[in-house]
């Protein structure tokens, strides 16, 4: 559910911190908010190339976490429908213009015997 809304149409942009890479805004494909320890992964594939989780960070309402930290974050949440910022690093600057962005969100839902989450792919325009 809500898979088509995972990757936000707007906000695909350069990082503001001087590092090479970008930021894509993402939403959780689920009908309630979750504590971050249950977000097992937000995996990014950019133009068919997977970006390692170590090269990404996750920001909700101004709080930034690495994916190493997330499993122990039981005190902060990804809210229902909230646009989180997935920042990523690349070796080379991204070209201005269209890119294919795929994001898979992996969630640990207690009442489900199988993994939760979803995946979506969009063509986004990168604003340098």
């Amino acid at each position, binding site marked *: 559910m809500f898979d088509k*809304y995972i990757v936000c149409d707007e906000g695909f942009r350069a990082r503001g911190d001087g590092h090479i890479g970008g930021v894509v805004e993402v939403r959780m494909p689920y009908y*309630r908010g979750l504590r971050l320890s*249950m977000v097992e992964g937000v995996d990014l594939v950019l133009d068919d190339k997977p970006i390692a989780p170590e090269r990404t960070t996750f920001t909700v309402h101004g709080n930034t976490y690495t994916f190493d930290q997330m*499993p122990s974050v039981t005190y902060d949440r990804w*809210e229902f*429908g909230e646009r989180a910022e997935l920042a990523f690093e690349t070796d080379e600057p991204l070209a201005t213009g269209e890119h294919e962005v795929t994001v898979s969100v992996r969630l*640990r839902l*207690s*009442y489900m015997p199988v993994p939760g989450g979803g995946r979506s792919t969009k063509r986004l325009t990168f604003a340098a």
Partner: protein
Amino acid sequence: MTNARHSIKRGVSLYSYQEETFLRTMSLEDCIRAASEIGAHGIEIIPEQSIPDFTNLTEEFVDTWFAWMEKYGTTPTATNSYLDTKLYPDRWLTVEEQIASIRTDIDVAVRLGMPIVKATINTSPEVMEGAAPYAEEKGVQLLIEVHAPFHYEHPWILEHLEVMHRTQSPALGLMPDMMTYVKRFPRVVSERALRDGANPAIVDYIVELYDDHGDTHALMDIVNYRGGGPVEYGLARVASHYIWTDPRKMLDHMPLIKHIQAKFYEMTEDEVEYSIPYDEIIPVLIEGGFDGYLSSEYEGNRHIQDAFPVDSVEQVRRQHAMFVRLLGEVA
């Protein structure tokens, strides 16, 4: 709006407006207003969907909440709790931690004036029993949802009923979800599978087997034998999850039934639910003397959002037009 024959009340779970809430085209206040405008005065919420920073409710939020209830003439009916047994990656919550989680949910409900907390189906009978004294102390009822594929003869529900009958706790009871009365396969679900590229012959097979109330236990295996892939498996899984049972089975448990989640997938232009026969369900609730809320739970958005605009407000309006008719309400 009362009727001599029954005291059933109408409400909405704001879950029904999840599409608009997710996309921020409706605020929490908009949802409450939409319910009020159709005479659905009972408000049920999933706190983790409707309120940021759960479980920390600010005084300001709580004041605003009660001001809305007064402004729109609405009444808090129920919250839905979620038991995150897998909160930590490396271990399950202990039974004590699970009970503590439910106690926190009860505290949130009390602050919002909610008399009922729904316990999600994964809540174990031991946790229900362990949380019951606190619920009693706080004057809240803790109801286990009876959600497909579960039913009143299912071992998991029988274990819950054993706790309720043995303890005689006034705080424990049942919240039937009307997805246990899916008589005809929801076409919004099968049509979505077709749009996702499912083999039409396999879709027809699944829908016909379901509509004939055939044995769906081995459906995923059969779909595999017939050359199905992930899309067809997904549809088969859903078909083996929905159930149709006789609504009259609720009569045996009426004293424990305090709230109804009126699930629906598609209200047609004729103001009937395509797959759930409310005209067979509501007379049973009237006969059994049910006096709680019929609380709408629209869940069709996820099946149509790929291809069609979602209008949850209109879907809920149609369901309540049907309820008014079936309840014999006179304005």
